[in-house]
């Protein structure tokens, strides 16, 4: 029905606000981000308010989440990585809630904008650079040389390694953005087909949308997990140069 399959992703501002000449008008993505922040912080606050010895269901859910993220950090970054636990937990929860809340009809998927995912990826990559240089000084540039290459191959290896390092934030951003956009575009196209075809054949795309919706829930959770674990791997690379993570269980 829609001639442009990317129609659900357009953002229309609700009125205009501007700060020092920069346009900061509200639109659906901004309101959704506020909803995500409010929901996530309220749920975790309620879960952690009274710490009973035999936990309530919400509290055991929060404990499961904390154990899961802590295991992820210890596996990839070792003991030194635990100081990044609040950052990794915030990242994981924000992306998870953004992805999941986008599946509710009528809401907007914040992570389907390349600006949002590029901001996350740039931030994570800048953090890995800053932590690497703060911990190791200029020896951090030794990460560009994999262990044991002969000196003659260095002028060939270093540009390749630089390109592969620069591909990390790009792939991190594009992976999350394209997964979310592709999922919702498939749903929009299938619904359009189900509506424009007559009823005796229009039920087939509709049944397919039910299956794709279930797949989208799974992909939302998996993409949040993948973003977080790749963040842990990149930070772990910066913390332990070419070493193995200590304290892995």
């Amino acid at each position, binding site marked *: 029905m829609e001639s442009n399959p990317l129609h659900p992703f357009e953002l229309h501002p609700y009125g205009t606000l501007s700060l020092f000449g920069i346009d900061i008008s509200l639109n659906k993505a901004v309101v959704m981000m506020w909803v995500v922040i409010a929901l996530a912080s309220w749920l975790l606050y309620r879960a952690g308010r009274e710490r009973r010895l035999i936990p309530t269901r919400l509290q055991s859910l929060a404990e499961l989440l904390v154990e899961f993220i802590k295991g992820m950090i210890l*596996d990839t970054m070792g003991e030194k990585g635990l100081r990044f636990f609040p950052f990794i937990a915030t990242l994981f929860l924000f992306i998870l809630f953004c992805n999941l809340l986008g599946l509710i009809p009528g809401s907007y998927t914040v992570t389907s904008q390349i600006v949002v995912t590029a901001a996350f990826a740039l931030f994570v990559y800048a953090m890995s650079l800053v932590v690497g240089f703060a911990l190791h000084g200029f020896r951090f540039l030794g990460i560009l040389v994999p262990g044991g290459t002969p000196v003659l191959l260095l002028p060939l290896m270093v540009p390749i390694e630089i390109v592969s390092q620069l591909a990390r934030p790009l792939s991190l951003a594009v*992976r999350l953005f*394209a997964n979310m956009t592709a999922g919702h575009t498939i749903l929009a196209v299938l619904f359009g087909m189900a509506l424009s075809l007559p009823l005796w054949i229009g039920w087939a795309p509709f049944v397919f949308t039910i299956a794709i919706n279930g797949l989208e829930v799974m992909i939302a959770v*998996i993409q949040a*997990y*993948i973003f977080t*674990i*790749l963040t842990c*791997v990149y930070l772990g690379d910066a913390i332990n140069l070419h070493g193995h993570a200590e304290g892995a269980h």
Partner: protein
Amino acid sequence: MDAASAALIGMGLAAAGFAGAGVGIGYIFGKMIEAVARQPEAEGRVGKYMWIGFALVEAIALYGIVIAFIIMGLRGK
């Protein structure tokens, strides 16, 4: 062939590149199932690497989608 139809054929060709990603994802999950069948205790350790590998393979397919979107965006000009 005018530019509009060439753009559409280009988008279709970019989407045809997903076949390689399908093969890659099938391969990695097949190897994971085989590894778990041989040694069920290895599931925790190998499972973590499986998800990282799946993400990296799927990213290539999604680069294809982005190229298709870029061609679609540049179509009117």
